[in-house]
């Protein structure tokens, strides 16, 4: 049904392709196309964030709970503050103007509160207001308003400390409890494990233990359990030869064999079989962990034996960083691949891709951007400003 898709959508795809290339033009240098796309994106994202946060969080959690439109409550709060402020000034200076303003504010406030109760749309407000729950619902509103105080006047910035103190302490407490369990406790527990864990005895193991083994999927595990009920297996080779397996399963198991890290290393047919490579790995895991912890121990100069240990720890850390680097490169590449797939229409229905003509549109966009940048550079050169800075301008 690609032909039914409205033209405005196709136009959208074209715009997307153009913006993609406009941003990629940053790779040549910072230029008006990039700046345009960037600013458009920032602007759109601001509008997007505000509306999304309002409809998904502020409306259900704040506005709906109060039961009246937020602006109405806001009005009451503002009027209240005005009245309070004027009253304070009036008491101190005894000025008639502020007395009058305060009186007016109180009058309006009374009106606003009255309308709160009387407004036809919110007849349930009466019982709401009498519940403690409703008043608790006002607290976050007040905190929000306090947060906005600084935007109104820098002199009020101290008001913002209340919500800030709340938020920082709150998240700190959440994080402390999370860290102590997941990142400290659970990791300690894992590190205190038996270094010499025996091979999984396939004649005794539970289905869960079996499926942990390489190449053993739940159906294969069921086969093993059936088989061993009749007669215990005498070697790992027998798994491959189980009668109920599909050729694909058999091929997978054959691929996963291997005495160092494969199936043979992890599974045996008798109790108490040692897995020497596993022991080596577990010991290295433990020593590497302890040495790296020593590196992050700050109360001792890293000389002599301690220095050697922590140097070993740094090596372990660096190998880990290398692994991390490899994964990160892959992730970044995937981002570019994703854009290429999208622009070339490889992820779309062929009929739709036919209508979009991604590569052609990309070519035209590149042409527009190249000509545009050339003209822009020409103009800059005429103006005597030389070439504008870009990522390679050093």
């Amino acid at each position, binding site marked *: 049904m690609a032909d039914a898709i409205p033209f405005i959508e196709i136009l959208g795809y074209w715009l997307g392709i153009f913006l993609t290339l406009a941003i990629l033009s940053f790779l040549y240098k910072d230029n008006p196309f990039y700046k345009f796309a960037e600013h458009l994106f920032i602007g759109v994202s*601001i509008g997007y964030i505000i509306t999304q946060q309002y409809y998904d969080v502020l409306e259900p959690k704040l506005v709906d709970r109060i039961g009246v439109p937020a602006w109405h409550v806001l009005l009451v709060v503002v009027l209240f503050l005005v009245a309070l402020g004027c009253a304070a000034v009036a008491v101190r200076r005894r000025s008639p103007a502020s007395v009058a303003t305060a009186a007016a504010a109180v009058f309006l406030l009374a009106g606003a509160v009255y309308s709160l109760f009387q407004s036809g749309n919110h007849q349930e407000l009466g019982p709401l207001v009498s519940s403690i729950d409703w008043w608790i619902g006002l607290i976050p509103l007040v905190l929000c308003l306090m947060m906005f105080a600084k935007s109104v006047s820098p002199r009020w910035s101290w008001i913002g400390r209340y919500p800030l103190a709340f938020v920082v302490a709150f998240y700190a*407490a959440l994080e402390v409890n999370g860290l102590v369990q997941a990142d400290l406790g659970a990791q300690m527990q894992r590190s205190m494990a038996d270094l010499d864990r025996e091979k999984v005895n396939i004649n005794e193991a539970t289905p869960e233990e079996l499926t942990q083994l390489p190449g053993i999927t739940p159906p294969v595990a069921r086969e093993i359990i059936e088989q061993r009920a009749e007669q215990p297996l005498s070697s790992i080779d027998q798994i491959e030869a189980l009668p109920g397996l599909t050729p694909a399963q058999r091929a997978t198991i054959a691929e996963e064999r291997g005495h160092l890290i494969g199936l043979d290393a992890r599974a045996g047919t008798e109790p108490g079989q040692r897995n020497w490579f596993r022991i080596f790995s577990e010991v290295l895991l433990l020593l590497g962990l302890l040495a790296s912890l020593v590196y992050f121990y700050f109360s001792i100069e890293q000389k002599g034996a301690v220095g050697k240990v922590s140097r070993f720890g740094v090596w372990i*850390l660096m190998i880990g960083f290398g692994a991390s680097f490899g994964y990160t490169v892959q992730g970044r590449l995937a981002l570019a691949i994703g854009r290429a797939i999208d622009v070339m229409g490889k992820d779309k229905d062929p009929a739709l891709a036919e209508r979009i003509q991604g590569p052609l549109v990309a070519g035209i966009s590149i042409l527009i951007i190249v000509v545009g940048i050339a003209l822009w550079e020409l103009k800059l050169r005429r103006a005597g400003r030389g070439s504008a800075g870009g990522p390679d301008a050093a």
Partner: protein
Amino acid sequence: MNLVKKQLPLLIGMAVGVLVLAEFYVPASWLDVTREELLTFAQILAAAAFVLGGVNLIQVNYPKIRRREEDWQYKVVLLAGAAIMFAVGFPWQDIGENPSPGQVTVVDGAAAASGGAALLRVEATRDNALVKVDGGSPQRAVVDGRPLELELQPGAHTIHVYMPAVGYGELRTELEVAAGQTAVARAELPMLWGPSGRVRTWLYNYVFFPCQATMFSLLAFFIASAAFRAFRARNTEAALLLGAAIIVLLGRAPIGRFIYDALPEITNWIIDVPNNAGRRAIMMGAALGGIVTGLRVILGLERSHLGSE
């Protein structure tokens, strides 16, 4: 004023912190209830902070336009983008009467239908509308400028008329027809505004989405150049990092197996053993650091986040 300006916020922070901290260790139900409330407050404040961020950005950018600072034209684009996205995010159709997506009426007489069948006529106001009957494959509602007519077996049917794009109302009804009757589905399919509305989704799909994704994809290029120009085996540590990186890069690509068939296994071992050892040490160290910093905030020993007078 120091009390109101400094000590009281700190005390509130302490109280909140202790409550949330204690909740995990003390299984008292009132603590649970309090925690739930506080969680909601925190969520609201987090959302409001984003709104504040938007307001601040406008506060920052508007003077730049007024003062005609360098690149002020782009700030206009920025503010216009924000204003448009903000405006289309409001569900305008909710003001006044909500437009209906259409209705189905069943009338007697089905001239074009063969004996014993009923007829469905779809009168869609939009040329691109699609029709699905009983969850089958979609059909265009307007064929060569004429409304689609379909034969229906007598009995109950579900009719779904919709647009092949997001942000329109859709007509989804169940109807019952007898032989010789005609069901007329008038589908208005009004365009919707608001969070899942037409224009907002369009802007998300074709501006927000490609821009954000492309911003990230610049990294693929930067990483290649960093690899060429900055990634050096300056010393043992860097050499180890490099070596592990190259092994993992090869081992985590399909081509690794063709170079040396144990490469994926070696990669898995690097991830499982040295990587996990170092990573776990960092994790535990960071956890300890995080706990103490958190405790300092909760105990009120840390007040830099509140700024100074």
